[in-house]
Structures are given as structure tokens and as C-alpha cells.
């Protein structure tokens, strides 16, 4: 019934080889990523290995990075947020509808979208903790509901013509040739890194995720922590939606669907690197760019877009398998 307390025979860590394995685990993904860049660069030197292409990869995937960063917070607390991608769509649609159809100022439209994100996160969190329903079920339900709501409010149509102010701030203006949104995501990753690793709150999130009963008996208000995590992830979803509207200059009512799976794949793949065994922002960021590089490269080699689904799906399974190996094959506590 209870997991056996593993009383491993040798408790002293052997320094030499284990350190090498540790480093390989930590930086393996980065090395593989660079190799991937090198391989595609060698195969298609004049198209793939151009600054324009690289900056496109770095810039255009900011939305996916933000969704992934949002995901890892509840994942650290051992909760899933399947609604995050739909919150993203809703948020981008809110910005577009308010700004384009109703002529609301872009600032107010963004604020409305972000508040909506916070509210949805709160609803998710309250449903999960008050009624003790698994987060997977609750967020699957709310996510699908939100998706339907988004289709209704947009009449299932793409709404374009979002204020160029947003577009300028997100993708048009560049620093060192890379769109500004790339730097936003790096800032968010740094913020989450700080939150998870250097604050008592971050440690508590980890305690709640890894030993909920221990955390509760240690005086941690586990429900409040879990609700906060879901509010943050939903807020990140809304933020990603704003960036999406800025990147595309439009909102597409079904765009979220294509972000859901890649975000999970990147979160799990990210948890195998940098800080192996933990969901961590740098690992996740690297994982997003690794996945996107792979897909972009394959498309350059002439594969059509079906490869994207195959690559993301395959990557998710490989990533979860790897993360299980890293965590020492403990049962996932879904």
C-alpha cells in the first residue's frame, strides 16, 4: 500500500562517475539541441543557418514558452492545468474583440484579458480544492467550456486588425535583431526560476507537490498554495494570449489547440534537464526551442506539416519516459 522506504545499501555517493552522469543529464538536452542545429545547418546551410531564421525561431515561439512556463507551476504542485491553452485563445480573442469590434483602447483590452485569466484560474483552483476533484478533470472541463465560449464570442471567425501598438511592442520592435517578445519570455523564466528556487513560497509549492500530507502536517495551507498555482498558470495563459494577439495582429479561435500538447511535451522534456527531476523554467525554455528547431528543420528538409504532430506527440512520450527514468521510476501520482 505504502511505497517502501528505499533503504539503499550504499548511501555514500560515488563522486567520480556520478558527477559525469549528473552533468550529462543536466546539459544533455542543450548539447542535443546544438547538434540538431548543426545537422540541419549542414544539410540546409543557406536557409536554416541564417540569422533571419534563427531570430524567427526565437521570436515566434515566445507564446509557447509562456504557456509552458505557466504549466510548470501547477505541475510542481502536482496539479495539471489543461485549460491553459484555451485561456490563451480566450485571452487573445478578448483583446481582439474588445479592441477591434468595440474600439476599446488596447491597454484596457489587455487588462480585461489578464483579469479574465486570473478569474478562470481562481475558479479552477476553487473547484479542485473545495470539491476535491482531480485537476485533470476540472481543467479539462473548464478548458473545453472556455473553448466553446471563445468560438461563440468570435462567431468562429478569426478577428484581425489588432492595434499596431501591441504588435510593435511584441514582434515588430527588435533588439539585436530578435523580437522583443523573446526577451519578455526570458524575463518570465527568470522570475519563475527565482520564485521556485529562492522563495519560501516556491519551496512550499514543491513540498505540496511531492508530499502533500507532509506539507499539510508541517503547517502549510496546501489548498491555498494549489489555488495560487492555478491562478498563476491561468494568468500566464492570458499573458500568452496577449502575446499571440501581438504576434499575429489577430486572434484565431482555435489556435490554443495546437499549443496544448507542445507545452506539455516541453514541460516534461524540460524536467529532464538543467535541474533533472524537477519542472524548471530554464529546462522548459530550452525544451521549447529544441522541439521547435527540430520541427523547423524537418520542414526545411521538405516534410510537410504532419511532421509537427508526429514530432510533438513522440516528444511528449519520450520526455515523460525520460523524466520517469530521472525520477527513479516512481509511480506518477496523477
Amino acid at each position, binding site marked *: 500500500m505504502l511505497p517502501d*522506504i528505499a533503504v539503499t545499501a550504499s548511501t555514500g555517493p560515488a563522486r567520480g562517475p556520478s558527477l559525469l552522469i549528473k552533468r550529462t543529464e543536466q546539459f544533455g538536452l542543450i548539447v542535443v539541441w546544438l547538434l540538431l542545429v548543426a545537422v540541419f545547418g549542414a544539410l540546409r546551410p543557406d536557409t536554416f543557418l541564417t540569422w533571419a531564421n534563427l531570430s524567427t525561431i526565437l521570436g515566434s515561439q515566445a507564446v509557447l514558452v509562456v504557456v509552458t512556463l505557466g504549466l510548470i507551476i501547477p505541475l510542481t504542485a502536482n496539479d495539471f492545468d489543461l485549460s491553459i491553452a484555451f485561456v490563451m485563445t480566450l485571452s487573445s480573442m478578448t483583446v481582439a474583440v474588445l479592441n477591434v469590434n468595440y474600439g476599446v483602447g488596447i491597454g484596457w483590452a489587455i487588462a480585461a484579458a489578464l483579469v479574465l485569466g486570473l478569474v478562470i484560474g481562481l475558479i479552477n483552483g476553487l473547484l479542485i480544492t473545495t470539491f476535491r476533484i482531480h485537476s485533470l478533470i476540472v481543467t479539462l472541463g473548464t478548458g473545453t467550456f472556455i473553448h466553446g465560449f471563445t468560438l461563440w464570442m468570435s462567431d468562429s471567425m478569426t478577428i484581425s486588425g489588432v492595434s499596431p501598438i501591441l504588435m510593435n511592442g511584441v514582434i515588430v520592435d527588435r533588439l539585436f535583431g530578435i523580437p522583443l517578445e523573446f526577451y519578455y519570455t526570458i524575463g518570465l523564466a527568470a522570475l519563475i526560476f527565482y520564485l521556485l528556487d*529562492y522563495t519560501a513560497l516556491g*519551496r512550499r509549492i514543491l*513540498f505540496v507537490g511531492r508530499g502533500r500530507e507532509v506539507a499539510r502536517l508541517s*503547517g502549510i*495551507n496546501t489548498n491555498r498554495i494549489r489555488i495560487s498555482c492555478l491562478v498563476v498558470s491561468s494568468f500566464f495563459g492570458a499573458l500568452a494570449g496577449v502575446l499571440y494577439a501581438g504576434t499575429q495582429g489577430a486572434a484565431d479561435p482555435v489556435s490554443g489547440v495546437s499549443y496544448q500538447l507542445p507545452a506539455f511535451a516541453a514541460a516534461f522534456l524540460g524536467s529532464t534537464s538543467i535541474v533533472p*527531476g524537477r519542472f524548471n523554467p530554464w529546462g522548459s525554455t530550452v525544451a521549447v526551442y529544441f522541439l521547435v528547431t527540430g520541427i523547423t528543420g524537418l520542414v526545411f528538409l521538405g516534410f510537410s506539416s504532419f511532421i509537427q504532430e508526429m514530432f510533438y506527440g513522440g516528444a511528449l512520450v519520450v520526455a515523460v519516459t525520460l523524466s520517469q527514468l530521472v525520477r*527513479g521510476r516512481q509511480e506518477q501520482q496523477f
Partner: protein
Amino acid sequence: MDAPAPLALRLSNLSKTFGGQKALDQVALDVAQGEVHGLLGQNGSGKSTLIKVLAGFHPPDAGSLLQVCGVDVPLPLAAGAFRLHRMSFVHQHLGLIPGLTALENLLINRLARRHAWAINWRAEHRKAIRQFESYGVPIDPGALVSDLPPVERALLAIVRAAGELSAGDGAGNGLLILDEPTPFLPKRDVEQLFRLVRSIVATGASAIFVSHDVDEVMEITDRATILRDGRVAAKLDSKTATKRDFVQAIVGRQLLATTPPRLAEAQAPSHIVIQGLCGGSIVDLSLAAGRSEVIGLTGLIGSGYDEVCYLLYGAKRATQGQLAIGKRHVALPAISPKLAIEQGIVLIPGDRATAGVIDVLPVSDNVTMPVLGSRFRPWMLDRRAMVRRAGSLGETFEVRPANPTLPMSALSGGNQQKVVLAKWFQQKPVMILLDEPTQGVDIGARQNVFSHIAKAALEGATVLCASSDYEQLAAICSRVLIFSGGRVVASLAGAEISKDAIAERCLFSAAPVTAEGNMADVA
């Protein structure tokens, strides 16, 4: 001896050695057909080892002999082979799946072992009703087990086991082994269970009834075998033996002639006062304790002693009660772990794997958990300082290996427990609640754990220690409260406390009626 009917079960010369220790030493057990045979003994007396040999879980030492209905059966039994010999087991945890119906549970073993297509549920339903009726058990086959009251669950498990007796094709009428099915049942429901056992035995089957409870054994069994330290201490005839004979055989010494006097209350100024605590199976517990006092809480399984710590800490919700620490008063139903910690109360839970430590996280994270906000800057954690602090605490508490960056899972049970003690004792608690503090702790670390508890007490903490390990209680407690049916029924203090005295009180106190009636029996 030429008995007309062969014995339902005959075990002789049964020995079992675990790493040089004899858990069973030439034990003999005879169970006649149509008999209910009691099997008693303290924890560690060899009862459960014997049961596990029969279940095919442990192979016994060479030379052990088993006969079922006069037929020699080669040992060791393969796991599950007991079914072929028409034995079936009902364990304390009953082996029911709560989310399924009574009928589905009844059929579990059959469906698990044999393929069945097109199950005729209506016919099975009717069959189940007939089966329940034949034993006079009022269970609706369609009811979910989780909706059944505890006694009906136990009845269901026993009916299921009885049904399996007739399914085997060995000799005899079958042997039902009831491995402590009663401790979690209210006393008034036990009678219902006994009626069922009697009606099963009336069909010619036999039963072995394993229990801690002398009164129950005296009521239901015909004869009883008492184990002590792996040997047969006595074979008693339940109808003629007295309770004193039983307890004496279990504990293994001459009993005190009279009841120990009730403890004179409050010889030390009371620092902590608990009044009218109710919740779980605890009924109206009041207790006053001084600083530096170590109070043991014990009783037989199901008596509720192990719930007190969790109720006081708010890990389990109390329904009534007041707690006073010095001049501060707390209503117990309102207490939460967070509030308890703020009052200086700490809990060392018994279930270390799920409630005590997070074994995938490093020692340093586990130790610093409750002091993150107070001892470190919460918005700019100094992780080196956390590891340093964990290191110095580890040194004080003699945690091996002395590397706080290792995950908890790399530590032995004893060292994990030292980490848990360090985690909670670093805050100089006022009240320490312990549940089985040395469970799964090796001998060497035990002393260590004891000395840290003693040290914390010396520094002024009041310690409540719930444990079923009487030796441990005798070693560390200045007072021991014995529970039965959720109430304190006896109390030992000072020189009266010994392992045997506690065992004796526990066994005597577990009465089906009121505590006073039982005490009269002793005097």
C-alpha cells in the same frame, strides 16, 4: 490417540527462523472439527508468523509437520495453496473493494481466477441473497461496500470466506482463519459477528480466531492456544479457564494481586490541560500534564489511543474539547496543523513514508520545511545557509550519512526518523506528540531517538507518546494511560510501569462492558 474424527488441523514441531532469531519454536496447534480455536499472544509472540506459514507466505523450517483432516500435507505450502486444503482467511483489513457492490466483492476471487463469459447477474444475485439468508446476515447484495456499516463489511468478508471453504476439494469440512477481524468494530456489533461464526462452525467447519482481546476469545472459542516468544505458553479450555489464566499465560508472569491504585492527580503543576476531547473513537478525554512529563498512550488495537495525537494537532478533526497551554486556550475543533505549530505543538506521525518525510527531496529541504519563513529570508532564500543549518542539526541528531544534500530515500528508517525529530525539535516545542516514534527504526537508532525525546522533555516540553510497544513506553514514560473503547480505563505511574504491567492492564481493560465491571473482575 485414536480420535473418531481426525483433527481439522494439526501443526506440530513448527519452527521458523528469521536471521538466527526463532520466531516460532516447535509450536504445536490442534484444531478439532467443529471447533472455534483461539490463538492469542502479544505482538511479536509469533501469531502472525504462524498464520503466514499457513497462508504459504513464509516457508517454515525443516521438520515442521502439517496434517489437514488426518492427511499429511507437505510443507512449505505454495502461496495460495491453502485453498486446495479448504482453508480460507479473513484478515483484519478484510480484503474488500469499497467501490464495488457486496455481490461483486463476493465473486472477486472466483472472477479473478476463472474466466467467465456472460455472467448471469440475476442468478448470482439470487444466490447471494440465499447465501446471506442461510447465515442470517442482512446484507443487500446490490449495496456498495463503502455504504455498508463496518460490521456488515466484516460479515460479508466472513461469508465470502465461508463460501470458499466449500469450493476447495481437500478433505474435511474446511477451516476458517479469522485474523483479528474485530478490533475496529463497536463492541455491540461483535456479538453479531460471533453468531455468524457459530453458524458456520455448526456446519462442521472449524475456525481459528486470532485476537488480542481475552474477553472475546473466552466468549467465542472452545479452546485456545497461547503463544509467547515463539513458543506455546499454554493451551487453555476457554470454558473453564479464567481471564486471569489467559492474561498470565500471555504476559508470562504471576499477576499483581490487586489493581494498582489510581494515580494521584497532578503532582506536578499542570502546564497543559486537555478537557473533554471527543473525536474519532475518542470519548471525553481529559488530561493534565506538567512540563517535562512524558506520558504514554496505549491500549489494544482499535481502542483509540493512536488517534489522540492527531486530534490534538488538528490533523484529524476533533468534535469537542479544549486545550490550555499555560494561559492560552484553544478550542480543539478549531485547531489546524498551522495553528498547532504556532502554539508550539509538534507532531511526529507514525506513517513516516506518507506523512513524515518527502523521500524524493533532500534532507535539507525536509529539515527546514517548518522554519523557512521564520529562520530564513522568505523572499531571498539562502540555500547554502539552509544546507549548513541542516548539516549542523544533522550533527546534533547524529544523522548518518552526514550529507544533507542526499535525498531522504538514501537514509535508513532510523536516520529518517532522526531527521524528522530534528525538523520539529529545532523550534523548542512546548508539546510533542509522538505516534509510534520508533516504528521501522533499527535498534541502534532507537536509543538515539529515546535520548532526543528525553532531552526535549528535560528542556521543558510535555511529551505524549502513543505506542503499542510496551517496552518502549516503559523505557521513556513517567505515566502511561491505557485506553479501551475510546476512554482511559487505567493509568500507571512511576515504579508501577513495566512492560508486563502495561500488557496486563491492556489485556484486562479491554472489556466488552464498562471499565468498572471489568476492574471488579480483577480484584
